[in-house]
């Protein structure tokens, strides 16, 4: 027995390289235990505080390793700037989600320890996913990120739509995972390797493996599987329902972090492992990107629920990012990473405002909840305005630079028609983003407008009653941290729009790490 164990030498493990991941896992365990403490103060304050500390430590460890490039655990994971920048983004999104969840209904109903432990586990899964350079670890990461999220969606247990959201996500997500797993198996079958470098070598070698039906099937199923996760049309149908039903802090987290993870793995899988098979996957992905842009933007037009609106907007934005993946060169991948970061900043500002208004008004996430806040709540009105302008791609916001970069990459990579789609999508998107801004600044608040506005969302059914927050969580006092999130990310949106150079330096390192041309 001992002799056998000696024969199977374990792989060399670089603990420092894994440290952000380990920090998040350990944090998840500690938080889970801390949630069992009897004292209510400990549960309600210490658990979120410790979660934030954990994520901050993970960010610190990631920053400390900037510039390191190596394989971890026998090549299962890759430590490079892409992994690190994504880790930082997930942790930032996680911190924002914890802050938005603090004093929210969901963690109280689901128990604080479990809620935060699940959140941290999901982040750990995301880190594994973007670091993965082996088909097995891709799937491992994907499941590790998905399963906690299925639960988190359903944490407002007394609200039917939250449960529905969780169930829907579970069913659709499992379908996506199964499809992906099938695709990964085909990829292994075609190339004889689960390792990304092995796959790339097999594709770059002799023979016409690029036209092998086995490989084509594998690529197609993989695209479909990842498209489910990244909510790329036509596999996006779950997105509005799940986003609407889930507790808003979780929606915010899913919208930014899950999407970032899905695109992170797409970059590594398509633009590194399958780069030599680009003829196979680039045209269909380009078509998917175009469809996604149109479907997302058109779908958002008629929405009155802000969460549904942002869900469709996130579909459209996924289309923009996909354009960067399609281009499959260094510029394209840099533009994608840039846009992911910018997208995270813009959306967190917007979702923070939605959380704040859900608690302040009985209107839930209806657009009417924003009516007139330009006059009454400037600290919420400005971040929301900036976020909407940025999502629409107005200059002097980070969204403009991000879009500029994507268009630049598309044109440079010979996909000018895709650039035109991005622009046409932006045109359509104006109609709904501006509707939100008009509600903020140009519509009188419900007090002035009388009961007409108040009556409108009640037609929406049972949703606003509990989504509006519990009796205790309601009120202006309990909102300091939510407003802070909105203001910080709103300000960041403008700052990155005027001084984008630091972010450009980061994505240049990422581009260099993947060694694309």
């Amino acid at each position, binding site marked *: 027995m001992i002799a056998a164990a000696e024969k199977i030498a374990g792989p060399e493990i670089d603990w420092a390289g894994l440290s952000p991941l380990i920090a998040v896992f350990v944090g998840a365990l500690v938080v889970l235990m801390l949630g069992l403490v009897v004292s209510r103060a400990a549960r309600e304050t210490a658990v979120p505080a410790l979660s934030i500390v954990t994520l901050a430590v993970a960010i610190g460890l990631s920053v400390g390793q900037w510039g390191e490039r190596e394989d971890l655990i026998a090549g299962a994971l890759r430590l490079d700037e892409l992994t690190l920048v994504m880790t930082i983004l997930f942790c930032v999104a996680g911190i924002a989600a914890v802050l938005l969840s603090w004093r929210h209904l969901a963690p109280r109903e689901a128990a604080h320890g479990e809620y935060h432990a699940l959140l941290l586990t999901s982040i750990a899964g995301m880190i594994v996913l973007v670091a993965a350079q082996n088909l097995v670890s891709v799937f491992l990461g994907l499941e590790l990120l998905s399963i906690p999220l299925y639960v988190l969606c359903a944490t407002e247990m007394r609200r039917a739509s939250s449960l529905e959201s969780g169930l829907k996500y579970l069913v659709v997500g499992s379908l996506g995972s199964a499809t992906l797993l099938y695709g990964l198996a085909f990829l292994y079958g075609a190339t004889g390797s689960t390792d990304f470098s092995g796959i790339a070598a097999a594709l770059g070698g002799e023979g016409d493996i690029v036209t092998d039906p086995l490989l084509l099937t594998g690529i197609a199923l993989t695209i479909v599987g990842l498209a489910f996760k990244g909510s790329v049309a036509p596999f996006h149908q779950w997105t509005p329902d799940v986003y609407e039903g889930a507790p808003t802090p979780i929606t915010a987290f899913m919208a930014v972090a899950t999407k970032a993870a899905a695109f992170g793995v797409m970059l590594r899988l398509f633009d590194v492992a399958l780069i030599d098979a680009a003829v196979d996957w680039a045209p269909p992905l380009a078509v998917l990107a175009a469809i996604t842009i149109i479907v997302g933007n058109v779908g958002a037009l008629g929405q009155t629920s802000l969460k549904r609106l942002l869900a469709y907007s996130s579909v459209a934005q996924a289309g923009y990012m996909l354009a960067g993946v399609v281009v499959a060169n260094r510029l394209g991948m840099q533009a994608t990473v840039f846009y992911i970061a910018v997208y995270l900043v813009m959306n967190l500002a917007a979702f923070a405002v939605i959380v704040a208004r859900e608690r302040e008004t009985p209107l839930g996430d209806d657009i009417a909840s924003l009516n007139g806040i330009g006059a009454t709540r400037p600290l919420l009105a400005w971040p929301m305005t900036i976020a909407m302008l940025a999502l629409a791609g107005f*200059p002097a916001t980070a969204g403009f630079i991000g879009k500029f970069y994507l268009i630049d990459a598309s044109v440079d990579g010979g996909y000018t028609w895709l650039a035109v789609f991005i*622009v046409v999508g932006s*045109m359509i998107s104006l109609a709904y983003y*501006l509707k939100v801004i008009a509600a903020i*600044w*140009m519509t009188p608040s419900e007090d002035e407008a009388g009961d007409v506005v108040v009556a409108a969302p009640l037609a929406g059914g049972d949703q606003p009653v509990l989504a509006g927050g519990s009796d205790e969580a309601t009120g202006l006092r309990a909102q300091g941290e939510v407003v802070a999130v909105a203001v910080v990310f709103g300000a960041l949106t403008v700052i990155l729009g005027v001084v984008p150079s630091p972010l450009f330096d980061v994505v240049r390192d990422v581009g260099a790490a993947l060694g694309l041309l």
Partner: protein
Amino acid sequence: MTLHLSIMLWLPLALGVIGLAAPPRFAGKLALLGCALVLGYAITFLIDFESGASGLQYLTDETWIGELGISYKLGIDGLNVLLVALAGIAWFACTLWATFTEWERPRLFYFHMALAETAVLGALLAQDLALFVVFFDLMLVPFFFLTGMWGGARRVQATMKLVIYTLVGSLLMLTAAVATGVLAAQGDLALSFAFSDLAERPLAESSQQWIFLFFAAAFLVKMPMFPLHGWMPDGYRAMPLPALAVFSAVLSKVAAYGFLRVCLPLFPDASEQFQTLLLLIALASILYGSAMAFTTTEARLILGYSSIAQLGFIVLGIFALNEQGAQGGLLQALNHGLVVVPAFFIVALLAARCGGSQDIRDMGGIGMRAPVLATLFLIVAFATLAMPGSSNFVGEFYILLGVFTEKIVIAIVASAGVVLAAFYTLRLFITTMHNRTGARVESRELTFREGLVLVPLVLLIIAIALYPQFGLERSEKTVSAVTAPVAPQSAVTAEGVAIPEADR
């Protein structure tokens, strides 16, 4: 390298931001201070400008986003020096006029006015295509809020229409701008959007074509020109007056300026190819605008439609693709801007004298007890209809002269526009100032402070009527350089002297 342009550019915005934090009663004063300083700067540039020198003056050139080849490059030359001055004058006058009114949420109002000024100045001063696009799109944001928050009836719908219309054009322009930079940087050339670099890297003719059309769409919507003017009636009805005056006076000129700055030098082949199309659009705008101005009864819309006609002349001049035409177009841009600001103020005064109605059928006889107002209006009206002796006459003369040498039929038809201008302008004047006194009309003289704004503007109109060369000689050198790639055969200056090849 100097900081002066940057100071002038950011000053209004800086004071606007300070105004957001200051007590509301200071907001207007701070904004006015910003406008006054910009005006002072603009006048200094105008006087200090070296007419003989070609190339950019007061150049500022810093890298903004190195990765994307975007530089923060500002400069003044013959193309923009007059328009910068126009922006300074229009904003000062309109902000001063705005302080006469009590605005709801004044800090935000003046902040948006200031942001608009910074954006417009940025678009005029930018010497980098990407920077130009940034400021050109940014111009829209404050007007979205100004119209939507302080506008008249149906303001939200109007502002949506305005923004969506113009931004559709602007986004097409964004794609076109990126494509220009990327396609120009073929081989081992570094990506750069600076106009000077792009001018040295001509694009293939097929690329020029679609890029030109995208740019043209953006500019034509912004002006607006005839088939793309759908937002104009609602927008003009809803915009608060000071914002409307600067919009009509300056923003439309930025679009015309865009043709001269971007399209002619960078896409010369496409400019020649689409010359007839643009001339026909301009012609249609002149005829349509004049006809509508003659039939509508809303005072604001008369000015709106007359602007379409006047901008038609400007485009006509630019797409004569020779020096006279472009000179005339530029001069006419200045003239129209200077004329339309007092014209909108007068419309506001008229409305105040007939119970708030904007309909000219309710007006009439207002001139009875207001001789000063009537006189000022008459001068403005004469300038609008390009009375011989006015600077507008010189501008239109140059434009028609330029077109005559290129497309004689179009020039002859366009001449009808000059006559039509007399029709609609005099109709506006007569029905409001003379005619039978309207039921609710209460004729009274303009107040001292209203005169304080109007009289200098009218004096300015008279001044450039007496000495139009002031503008022409400043723009001449640059205009001939800009039109050189598209009109090699007609290298004739305003004085009829051929420029030696080496100078161009």
